[in-house]
């Protein structure tokens, strides 16, 4: 009797009183098979209760949940948020100063700027036409989604189309913290050398846009642009690359064009 027997109508029981055959051994596979087999062997009724549930739920860290909340908030306000990351001194603040003074006059921008200590950058970026909030992190080496949420709520974002989030200068930790930004911008300055993307791949891997900054002094430094661009392409083929100088203005029209393409139509 190898075929599956049809289930008995309810209320019908068969009980062999004598000459009972041993119950055929069942070969089980799949989850819990060992436990089920063991339980069956000792179960007088040949029945065991098994509880195994397939869940397939993503494990989100607290920061991921808050970042998604920020993304919805920014989207709802109709603004594009950019997370600017780089090592310290790559020129994030200098680029933002000039960007506010030029692009910021045609399109309203806001800035959240993070540093371990001092509000120097916040004061440098302070403009009557652009809301700015300084985040001082104390000992924390990156911004996280909760800091950004608090800072964004502290300023008047009415009319703001582009929100720059200037991260703490660090090429490592900010890679792991989604802030709820729409675009991640990684800056690489010519003074840092061409091989930074190969040495710190995660942050470049996550970039939508890579800005090669201080390009005006590339020749003086012997910085090889093609090598740098090639290294970026290896790690982040998805990223757009713009070479610029916030001092001479080279490449800035392309940067402003990129920002313009992000500013949601009203």
């Amino acid at each position, binding site marked *: 009797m190898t075929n599956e027997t049809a289930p008995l109508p309810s209320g019908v029981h068969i009980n062999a009183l004598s000459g009972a055959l041993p119950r055929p051994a069942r070969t089980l596979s799949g989850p819990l098979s060992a*436990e089920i087999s063991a339980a069956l062997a000792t179960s007088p009724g040949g029945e065991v209760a098994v509880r*195994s*549930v397939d*869940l397939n739920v993503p494990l989100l860290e607290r920061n991921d949940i808050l970042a998604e909340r920020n993304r919805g908030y920014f989207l709802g306000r109709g603004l594009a948020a950019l997370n600017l990351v780089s090592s310290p001194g790559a020129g994030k603040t200098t680029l933002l100063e000039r960007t506010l003074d030029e692009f910021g006059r045609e399109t309203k921008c806001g800035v959240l700027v993070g540093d371990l200590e001092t509000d120097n950058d916040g004061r440098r970026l302070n403009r009557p036409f652009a809301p700015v909030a300084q985040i001082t992190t104390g000992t924390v080496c990156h911004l996280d989604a909760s800091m950004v949420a608090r800072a964004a709520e502290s300023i008047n974002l009415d009319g703001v189309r582009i929100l720059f989030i200037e991260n703490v200068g660090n090429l490592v930790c900010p890679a792991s913290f989604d802030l709820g930004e729409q675009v991640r911008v990684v800056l690489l300055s010519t003074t840092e050398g061409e091989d930074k993307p190969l040495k710190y791949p995660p942050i470049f891997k996550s970039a939508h846009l890579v800005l090669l900054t201080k390009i005006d002094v590339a020749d003086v430094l012997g910085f090889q642009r093609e090598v740098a661009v090639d290294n970026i392409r290896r790690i982040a083929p998805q*990223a757009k690359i713009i070479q610029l100088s916030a001092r001479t203005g080279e490449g800035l029209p392309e940067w402003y064009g990129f920002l313009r393409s992000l500013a949601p139509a009203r």
Partner: protein
Amino acid sequence: MESALDAVRREAAAHGATSVTRIVLRIGAISGVEPDALRFAFEAVSPDTLAAGARLEIETIPARAHCGACQREFVIEQGFIFTCPNCGAFSGDVRSGRELELARLEFPAPTP
């Protein structure tokens, strides 16, 4: 691991269970999570929880990227440079390998 245990607690409660015998996690190869570190963390944080004594199983999902030029997927062997084995182009289009999921839970059978 803390967020995994939070999810275990939440799902166990949703299924009316007070303890867990097996936890199956699905971890992508480039999720940034090291299975060994995860096991170590599990040993450290589980003893005083409903998952005490539970078996932790980790299914690893290989990382795959898509080559736009060849219109095909390939397995990412290692490292951060994803090179198509067919044409040598670099790809940033990751199709799998970032998973971080609680795949399955098993609870002890209720005693009759």
